[in-house]
């Protein structure tokens, strides 16, 4: 959140009084070794704990590592691009890719639109109601992913779930023992609801913070001039929120594309093919089927698929890092 916090402040247009560049420049030049020294521990840790396994993952994807090699410690044979051709020519894999993409699009749109709506709503409600909304969202936000997923699993249980009980009470509806995961559309609605539910607080509270930066005078002036609320939103509020919106949307895309915990827990640790996403698919291949190399190849492809979004995110963040 504080990542965004700093953006919020920036969008607020508060420019710190910076003395003319000359005063700072000489000091910056003198220090060439010190900053590297300061960064060294962090860089070493990243290289050791993240960098090395990352290289090994790529290496594994060109080998054929199975349980036997894993246990015996014998080097896995090199197989070139075999894993990649196998994955890329597998229709199951592409089904997983499209499912993950479709889920991401739907979940992100819902989360951002509802989140924005709630943020706007928060500007209009009474103080007490706003406080209630913030408290409610704080609790949801604070709920660990795993706990939230288990709660949803319990709520949608076909035998003891309260959702079935409530829907069954509607006249003419029989939801007794209804199973939410027979029909993948229904199952995915549950998963999407969970993800959107858990994602709204971050977006709504962040955007609400951003909205406090929208000058009240500007909005009032526009209203007096006869602008409709929609026009005010489009031509005043949204442009000011835009940098913030871009960041929260990009982050949501990255998070939702990596969906693992929610579908994993709701399907009791063994998602059926229609509930696999790239993350669970890779995990199942690697750990369920002991195809460590194939799983690695899928992970590498996942990262490559995300590269565009990631590059965009990094560029946005980079700008902030450079300017400050």
């Amino acid at each position, binding site marked *: 959140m504080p990542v965004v916090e700093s953006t919020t402040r920036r969008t607020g247009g508060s420019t710190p009084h910076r003395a003319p560049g000359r005063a700072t420049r000489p000091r910056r030049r003198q220090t060439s070794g010190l900053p*590297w020294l300061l960064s060294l521990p962090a860089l070493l840790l990243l290289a050791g704990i993240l960098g090395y*396994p990352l290289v090994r993952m790529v290496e594994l994807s060109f080998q054929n590592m199975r349980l036997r090699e894993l246990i015996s410690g014998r080097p896995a044979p090199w197989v070139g691009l075999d894993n990649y051709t196998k994955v890329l020519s597998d229709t199951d894999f592409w089904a997983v890719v499209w499912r993950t993409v479709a889920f991401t699009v739907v979940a992100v749109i819902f989360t951002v639109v509802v989140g924005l709506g709630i943020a706007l*709503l928060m500007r209009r409600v009474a103080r007490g109601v706003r406080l209630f909304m913030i408290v409610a969202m704080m609790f949801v936000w604070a709920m660990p*992913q795993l706990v939230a997923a288990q*709660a949803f699993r319990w709520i949608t249980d076909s035998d*003891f779930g309260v959702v079935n009980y409530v829907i069954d009470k509607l006249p003419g509806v029989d939801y007794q023992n209804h199973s939410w995961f027979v029909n993948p559309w229904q199952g995915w609605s549950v998963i999407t609801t969970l993800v959107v539910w858990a994602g709204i607080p971050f977006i709504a509270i962040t955007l609400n913070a951003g909205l406090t930066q929208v000058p009240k005078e500007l909005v009032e002036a526009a209203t007096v001039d006869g602008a409709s609320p929609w026009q005010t939103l489009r031509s005043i509020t949204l442009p000011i929120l835009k940098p913030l919106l871009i960041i929260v949307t990009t982050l949501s895309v990255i998070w939702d594309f990596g969906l693992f915990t929610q579908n994993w827990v709701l399907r009791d640790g063994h998602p059926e093919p229609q509930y696999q996403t790239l993350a669970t698919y890779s995990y199942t291949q690697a750990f369920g089927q002991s195809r460590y190399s194939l799983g690695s190849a899928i992970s590498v492809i996942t*990262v490559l698929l995300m590269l565009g979004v990631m590059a965009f995110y990094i560029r946005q963040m980079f700008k902030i890092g450079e300017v400050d």
Partner: protein
Amino acid sequence: MVATTPGAPAVRTRSRRRVDEGVITVGRSRAATIAANTTGIVFSILMLFPIYWVLNTAFKPADEVLALTPTFWPKHPTFDNFLSAVKAPLFLQDMLNGLIITLLAVAGSLVVGFLAALAIARFKFYGRRGIILVILAVQLVPFIALLIPLFLMLQSVSLTNSLIGVSITYLVLILPYTVWTLRGFISGIPRELDEAALIDGCSRGQVFWRIILPLTGPGLVATSVFGFIQAWNEFIIINTLNSPEKQNLMAWLLQNQTTRGTAWGPLMAGAIITSIPVVIFFLIIQRNIATGLTAGAVKG
């Protein structure tokens, strides 16, 4: 030295607070306000429902939990589920493990991350862009994919099934985020403060101890809380690296499914206990971000 530069944070906070209180009211009908308030309340209730249901389940005795007709209130409220969770094998052990791992990871990541953040925020040097790029990029790597190589590596230095191994892994897990966030807080401190202090005869070390560190205090709190939450909530890595007596509460929750089906009552009670530190920290950070910024400005 303080008086020489008007602290930017002070200005910022003041202006924000003013805007914050000014809820836009021009041109809004009473009906619209009532509709907005109602929507807000309904939304909040819907958001809270799953949490309410977790609480409701946790306080029900076993026969009410597994009832084909669920009740919206425990008829015979009981703490049995909480007692059951706390007394369950390894629950307290895993809670302690989780605390140790998380605190080690957060403390380590703060120290290491602060130094790197200082370098990025306060110095212009060859390779800075590269470091920023690395910090941002590694945040996006799917950690699950790294499990096997990570395991093999830690195993070779005898750090699997140890609290230290997981702590280091979590440290690195939250490090990029820590560096990036602290960088934001450090650059929020006007560079003029450093300059003025240097002119006043402070050494660079003194500038660090007397200006940058106190002023990033709230930032450190916010960062460590988010780091804490991330590390506390992780379960996939620890579930693979460590055996149950060296795991954390999340992994405990994941595994608390006996062969005789899930014991939902104790599970929900355990889930509540597990979530409590996170909720408390969330509340703390809320206050600290707000008051911290003003306090920092006054001090500065």
